[in-house]
């Protein structure tokens, strides 16, 4: 199957009067359709920059980024790429429903049927009663779900998630992570998640890329495989919360922990 997303020797640097900072260099990897990829690495290794590049908000200095084999033309590629930021950034002056309309509104595709679909999506994900509420009336977890629906409203094929759970308290975080994983899997989307939380990455991803310290490079790629998943019928993945209880979890945790540690001992 041709990859949904392909990065080929991508390099990106920031320019300031004090000098140039190379954020990422020689980044190559692919993501298959329907795959959930997590990217981990030490803070400041260029994880968020990588997502901005994939989204088309920035252009790489060198290398290519291909979505379905074609270079990315405009930010978001007309709604084909959805980007979920760390904070929900719901607009306080809009209702939850109107916040979810934002994407189609910007691309001038907000038809009555699109409105209906988005409203139905809010109902499906437990926000039906809050459609006309202001975001301030929602809990942290509900806000993050509303932000995800705003991202999904454009029906993106590829979802980029920039530590979307980091602003939540631990308990909410676990359950929202569970929710969001289920929503993305049910919708059959391809996703790239950036996180600094090892256990979160292991509990949610099909494959994990470890980046080195700045300038970020691909250090290793670890496929995540739980035997409980292949033995269950239709190879369904188990929920992130359940994954945390499986024996392989600590194995992956130790493996990735060592990868991250060894990087700190020998900074490049």
């Amino acid at each position, binding site marked *: 199957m041709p990859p949904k997303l392909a990065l080929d020797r991508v390099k990106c640097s920031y320019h300031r009067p004090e000098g140039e900072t190379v954020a990422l260099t020689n980044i190559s990897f692919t993501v298959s359709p329907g795959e959930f990829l997590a990217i981990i690495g030490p803070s400041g290794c260029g994880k968020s920059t990588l997502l901005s590049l994939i989204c088309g908000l920035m252009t790489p200095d060198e290398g290519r980024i291909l979505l379905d084999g074609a270079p990315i033309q405009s930010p978001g590629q007309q709604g084909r790429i959805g980007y979920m930021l760390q904070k929900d950034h719901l607009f306080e002056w809009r209702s939850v429903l109107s916040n979810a309309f934002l994407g189609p509104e*910007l691309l001038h595709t907000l038809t009555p049927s699109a409105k209906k679909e988005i409203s139905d999506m809010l109902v499906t994900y437990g926000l039906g009663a809050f459609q006309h509420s202001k975001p301030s009336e929602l809990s942290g977890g509900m806000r993050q779900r509303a932000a995800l629906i705003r991202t999904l409203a454009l029906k993106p094929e590829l979802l980029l998630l920039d530590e979307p759970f980091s602003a939540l308290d631990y308990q909410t975080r676990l359950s929202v992570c569970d929710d969001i994983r289920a929503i993305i899997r049910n919708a059959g989307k391809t996703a790239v998640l950036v996180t600094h939380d090892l256990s979160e990455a292991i509990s949610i991803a099909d494959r994990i890329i470890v980046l080195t310290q700045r300038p970020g490079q691909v250090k290793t790629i670890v496929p995540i495989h739980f035997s409980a998943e292949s033995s269950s019928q239709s190879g369904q993945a188990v929920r992130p919360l359940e994954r945390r209880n499986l024996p392989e979890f600590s194995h992956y945790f130790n493996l990735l922990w060592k990868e991250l540690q060894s990087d700190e001992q020998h900074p490049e």
Partner: protein
Amino acid sequence: MSNTQSKYLARISLHKKQVRLTRGLLLILFLALWEISARLELIDSFIFSSPSLILSCLASMAMDGSLFYHTGVTVMETLLSFLLVVSISLGTALLLWSNRTLFEILEPFLVMLNSLPKSALAPILIVWLGNRMRTIVTAAVSVALFGAILTLYTGFFHTDPDKIKLIYSLGGTKKDVLTKVLLPSSVPLIISNMKVNVGLCLVGVIIGEFLSSKAGLGYLIIYSSQVFQMTLMVTSISVLCLVSVILYQIIALLEKKIL
């Protein structure tokens, strides 16, 4: 409702009543003391006037219509300059936000004009623009405008960059950033800026009327000082107090409605 909650509510409402009552009493006490000391000739009512003299002055001014004429002139000049300040400052701040280089070029000039005491400009405005209403409006606009531009620009410039990133990531344009994020998120700033500006415009109008006018409350104050009619002067100042409170309250009401 629980017992403690109703007690709490009762305590709040009692507190509010007490504040209002004390406030009213303080005003009455002040006016009464003023009136009594004038009647007992502890103070010279020719110089200090008295509440009763002010009331009769107000009544006679209301009878011959001059009260409404002069107040009307001042209010109209203030509203006109206020509208000009609000629209010009908003337009300029948006222009500067959309063109950062332009802001970098103009910043020192704006800062200089903002810190310049605008009353220094009034005499030159009279020479340039004549002894007319447009001079007064220009003076009032000059008092409020530059500060308003800088305040609005700074607010616009500090719009959450991630909210802007969100708009771009969804395929929006700079125009979308303006209409979907910048303007709606700046409504509280724009209104609080309006509150400041309406007061500053009134200051500017009075400065203008002091120097060049044949009507308005500022004119009345200067005229009465020249003919030494202290009652007329204090009356004009009292009306001015009322005007400034009403103008401020109108915007506060607008703020309550919108936010």
